[in-house]
């Protein structure tokens, strides 16, 4: 801010001094113009006088003698106090009269003043001429003399010595004339353009002398205003002098000619030192204003910005979470109000914050406890999981061991019985012995079935029943099943009916051995219940209408299953209490295994309840679609 004030002041000052200088130069120029104007009027009046003389009756009156005319002119000269002469020429250029009575009869017909006058012009020299009679430079004025018939009768000439111009000039220039700010007189020179000094107030000796340096000054420094209508101020500063010039030239002493130059010179130091003085005063004033402004600004800033910055500091502290430090800003204005409201807000926040902190602490403790519990539970779960895995391994080992231990003893038992029954080398057994051994053999087979079933159920239970699934053509599967089932029922009086409605291209993805196991279990089940003499088992295989699954049903003509027993049938070791009709001696695990195998294949097994003539077991297996087949 201070900088900008200084800058503005400086610029202002610069402009001020510049303007002041221009003002001074302008004033100098005005003086010059004014002087030139006055001079011009003085000289022009002289020309007017001549013109008046030429048209006056006196000069053209033939009745008045030349002598009288000359006397008249002399008296008139005295009257106007013009220290000059008047001559009269006839039409041929001969001087016929002269107020000084000299050079009468001289022929000046070739002179410009005569030539111009003959043309009817009023004329004056723009450049002074050396007059031998006056022994000094003279400006000549001429005009025609008209007769009564308005014909030119002759020429009247008046001469104006330059030293007389000097007199006029001295009168024009008031010696006391001063420029407002300057105590010294201005140096003034009136110079013809060929360098003849006509007037000088500073170098009197140079008057009427030709000074080439002045001519050079006029020409080289462009103070000679060729086109004053531009209204430009022409000035130059040479050798610490301000030079202002104005010129008059051809024809009359107006501003259009090229004959005269008025040079005004002023000491630049003096004039500008005055300006500088004023400028300095201005600077001091500006500086004082700036200092006062700064002091005022600082005072205001103290009152406004101090509370604001304090408030801001507090706001930052608050932002960082320090809700405890009190906000006190002494200020009677809006900032004071603001800080009071801010303080109220801080108190509110502090209250809420402390409540929140308490709450967070409580929750943190709860969370920690919960976390601890969770960790404990996780550890327990981990332990449990480990134990479960170990239990799984143990189960599998157990299963493997049981399998081995139960099956191995059956090998020699069964083998030796076979040998007893078949090996003739050992010797023929009697019928009784044969019957006993047969019973032992049958029971060993039962144990064998039981062992296998138990192991299957166990595998199902622990999820270790592994299936060796392959794409199986349903036609092949049913053929194989048909063969197996016929073998099973061959020696019994049971009628097996097969109704197989499948496409040659229908496939299921299954473990064939296991599916065969399902069938044999179901058939064994039926065999147990159908009547001995006219047992009948219908087996139906069909594809669902949308070709998504294949449906197998095994239907017998046994006593059927009581409705209340249906749901229990697929439970382990559950058998319908018809012990009297038990022939095959099932393990009570067959249906459980069937269910496990079917479900492991993504199928379903159920008992058809509505069938009241016997038992009807149905199970489905998903059909493989063509695309999967191709894969």
């Amino acid at each position: 801010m201070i900088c900008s004030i200084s800058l503005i002041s400086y610029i202002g000052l610069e402009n001020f001094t510049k303007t002041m200088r221009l003002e001074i130069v302008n004033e100098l120029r005005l003086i010059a113009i004014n002087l030139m104007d006055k001079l011009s009027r003085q000289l022009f009046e002289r020309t007017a006088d001549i013109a008046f003389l030429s048209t006056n009756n006196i000069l053209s009156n033939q009745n008045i003698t030349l002598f009288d005319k000359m006397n008249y002119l002399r008296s008139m000269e005295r009257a106007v106090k013009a220290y000059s002469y008047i001559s009269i020429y006839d039409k041929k250029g001969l001087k016929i009269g002269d107020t000084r009575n000299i050079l009468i009869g001289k022929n000046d017909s070739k002179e410009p003043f005569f030539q111009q006058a003959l043309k009817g012009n009023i004329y004056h020299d723009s450049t002074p001429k050396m007059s031998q009679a006056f022994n000094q430079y003279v400006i000549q004025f001429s005009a025609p003399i008209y007769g009564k018939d308005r014909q030119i009768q002759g020429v009247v000439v008046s001469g104006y010595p330059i030293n007389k111009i000097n007199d006029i000039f001295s009168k024009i220039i008031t010696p006391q004339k001063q420029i407002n700010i300057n105590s010294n007189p201005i140096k003034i020179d009136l110079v013809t353009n060929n360098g003849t000094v006509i007037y000088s107030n500073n170098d009197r000796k140079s008057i009427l002398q030709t000074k080439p340096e002045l001519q050079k000054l006029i020409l080289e420094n462009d103070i000679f205003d060729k086109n004053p209508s531009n209204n430009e101020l022409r000035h130059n500063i040479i050798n610490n002098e301000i030079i202002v010039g104005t010129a008059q030239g051809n024809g009359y002493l107006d501003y259009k000619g090229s004959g005269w130059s008025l040079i005004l010179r002023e000491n630049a130091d003096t004039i500008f030192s005055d300006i500088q003085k004023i400028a300095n005063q201005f600077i001091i004033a500006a500086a004082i204003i700036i200092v006062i402004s700064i002091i005022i600004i600082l005072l205001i800033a103290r009152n406004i910005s101090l509370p604001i910055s304090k408030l801001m500091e507090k706001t930052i502290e608050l932002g960082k979470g320090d809700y405890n430090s009190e906000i006190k800003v002494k200020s009677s204005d809006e900032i004071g109000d603001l800080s009071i409201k801010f303080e109220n807000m801080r108190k509110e926040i502090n209250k809420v914050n402390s409540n929140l902190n308490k709450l967070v602490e409580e929750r943190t403790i709860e969370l920690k406890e919960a976390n601890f519990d969770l960790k404990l539970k996780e550890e327990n779960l981990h332990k449990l999981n480990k134990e479960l895995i170990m239990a799984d391994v143990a189960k599998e080992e157990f299963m493997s061991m049981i399998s081995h231990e139960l099956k191995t003893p059956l090998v020699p038992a069964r083998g030796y019985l076979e040998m007893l029954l078949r090996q003739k080398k050992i010797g023929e057994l009697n019928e009784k012995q044969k019957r006993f051994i047969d019973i032992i053999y049958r029971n060993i087979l039962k144990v064998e079935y039981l062992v296998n079933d138990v192991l299957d159920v166990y595998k199902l239970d622990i999820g270790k029943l592994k299936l060796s699934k392959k794409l199986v053509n349903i036609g092949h599967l049913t053929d194989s099943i048909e063969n197996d089932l016929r073998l099973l029922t061959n020696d019994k009086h049971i009628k097996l009916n097969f109704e197989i409605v499948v496409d040659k291209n229908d496939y299921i993805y299954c473990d064939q051995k296991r599916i065969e196991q399902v069938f044999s279990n179901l058939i064994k089940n039926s065999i147990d219940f159908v009547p001995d003499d006219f047992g009948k088992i219908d087996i139906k295989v069909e594809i669902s209408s949308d070709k998504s699954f294949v449906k197998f049903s095994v239907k017998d003509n046994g006593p059927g299953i009581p409705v209340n027993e249906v749901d229990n049938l697929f439970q382990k070791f559950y058998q319908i209490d018809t012990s009297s009709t038990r022939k095959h001696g099932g393990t009570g695990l067959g249906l459980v295994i069937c269910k496990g195998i079917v479900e492991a294949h993504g199928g379903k097994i159920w008992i058809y309840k509505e069938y009241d003539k016997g038992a009807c077991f149905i199970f489905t297996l998903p059909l493989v679609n063509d695309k999967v087949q191709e894969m």
Partner: protein
Amino acid sequence: MSIKGSNESPIQRVLVIDDNKDTTELLEDFFESEDIECIVINEGRKGLEEIRKDKGHYDLILLDLTIPEFSGWDIFKKLKEENLLESKNIIIFTASTKTNNGIDELIKEGAKYVLKKPFSLEELRKITKL
């Protein structure tokens, strides 16, 4: 199934490796009744040595998988490593609950047949075409 002897010449010598004495005795009796020489070894390592020594004497080798210390599995693996399986007619019997996959693998590896315990003599007779 092509078991040596079944097609070309009758089986004359059989090696049985099993720790269960009742089973080995049954097999001895069975083969004896068929007039076939049956050599029984009850330990795994000895069994392996016997197979290694064998120079085509045994027409059949019956190998039980579950033998303590050095099992039939170990023997089978060693034979596989030593490329001895190709020339041998090995029939494996097992009570293992391993799935069909396991049996398939054994066949693929070079066993001629896998008998699941409890097998019947009828089954054994069938596969050896006695």
